């Protein structure tokens, strides 16, 4: 019988359905309820990936969840995942300590387009944990800083205690060639920073809309206000890229759990060009 690559994966050969074993080398508490793992493969091999991709992460005995890769793709010897403890599996994961072994399947998914946007101004629009899937792209754009025009990061959080990767944001803000706008929903009296929505930060960001490519990572309901703020500035929807989430099971386009209209988010996404999915946002129960 002629076997297809999918059949080979199903029978359990090393492939997309068989987790690789990784050891947690560091656990960092980011903000309450959010933690970051640094991982190394047990067999010592690197884990190459591209910004925007995700893994299916297994905690043996608890379950498997999709998690964006949050590290620097120029450092494939170290795999980084930032996880929010919201459900049974991720709450169990939060209790794991260094040296624990987990399973990793991936990398999966369509990455952020970086080579296609060389020469553009770049604006990132995100909030709370949405910075995690965008961080590898920010790292890569800053590694290749001379390939791009203006670089603007617009980040929002509930309050000052919820700002993710605060050290990275401070470091990026300290660069002379990058503009960083951090917005919080509320702050104590006397706070001199910006309070309001991330969309408000987009409205004052110094960008040339005709040259700008925008990268948005927000919850699905908050993606449209972010996109509206960009289109109000004149950034066209074919220059806006979004990353979306769905409950995923197989991660390889077989089970259909992550179906998004006519696409499977695990392989046709999670990164989409907004004009190609705009109509789906208006449809309920997609």
């Amino acid at each position, binding site marked *: 019988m002629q076997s297809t690559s999918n059949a080979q994966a199903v029978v359990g050969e090393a492939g997309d359905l068989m987790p690789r074993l990784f050891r947690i080398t560091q656990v960092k508490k980011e903000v309450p*309820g959010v933690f970051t793992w640094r991982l190394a493969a047990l067999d010592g091999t690197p884990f190459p990936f591209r910004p925007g991709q995700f893994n299916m992460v297994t905690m043996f005995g608890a379950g498997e969840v999709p998690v964006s890769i949050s590290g620097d793709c120029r450092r494939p010897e170290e795999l980084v995942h930032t996880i929010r403890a919201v459900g049974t599996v991720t709450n169990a994961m939060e209790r794991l300590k260094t040296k624990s072994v987990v399973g990793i399947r991936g990398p999966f998914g369509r990455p952020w387009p970086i080579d296609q946007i060389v020469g553009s101004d770049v604006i990132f629009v995100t909030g709370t944990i949405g910075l995690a899937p965008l961080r590898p792209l920010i790292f890569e754009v800053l590694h290749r800083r001379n390939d791009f025009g203006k670089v603007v990061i617009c980040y929002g959080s*509930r309050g000052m205690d*919820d700002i993710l990767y605060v050290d990275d944001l401070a470091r990026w803000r300290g660069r002379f060639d990058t503009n960083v706008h951090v917005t919080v*929903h509320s702050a104590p*009296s006397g706070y001199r920073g910006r*309070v309001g929505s991330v969309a408000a930060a987009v409205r*004052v960001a110094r960008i040339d809309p005709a040259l700008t490519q925008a990268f948005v990572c927000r919850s699905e309901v*908050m993606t449209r*206000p972010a996109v509206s703020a960009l289109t109000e500035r004149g950034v066209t929807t074919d220059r806006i890229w979004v990353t979306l989430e769905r409950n995923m099971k197989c991660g390889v386009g077989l089970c259909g759990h992550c179906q998004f209209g006519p696409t499977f988010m695990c392989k046709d996404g999670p990164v989409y060009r907004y004009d190609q999915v705009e109509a789906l946002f208006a449809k309920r129960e997609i």
Partner: protein
Amino acid sequence: MVQIEGLGPTLAQHPFFAGMDPGALETVVGCCANAVYRPGSYIFREGGAADHFYLIRSGVMALEVHVPGREAVVIETLESGEIFGWSWLVSPYTWTNDARAADNLRLITIDGACLRRKMEADRVLGYELYKRFMPIMAKRLAANRMRIVELATEPATA
């Protein structure tokens, strides 16, 4: 020779007043003055008479809510070019929040009490001002609704 200009050209160039009936604009200009607030000082306090509205020339204004038993909470900041203070248009003409200078704040203050009296007789003036304030209020209402959605749908970490 030093030429001193009134606030008329500044207002005329501001998008809020674009296309305003010239007579109405002249009336508004007649009710304007410059004001400067040092960091931490209040432009207005909740419950006070809402007899002005404001155009930010430079600096940041922080809108605050007094919370009994704890520190006040900043709920929004506005920056250069923004208009704030719609309570002068809505009875009972009292402020619903505190407005505080987050840094050195230069404003144009417009006398709303005077404009309210003039609007009773000059309906063109009234229409021109309501026509401009309504979209600002609608946009801020929509933005605040989406902030509620965001806070309701994204898990709190703290």
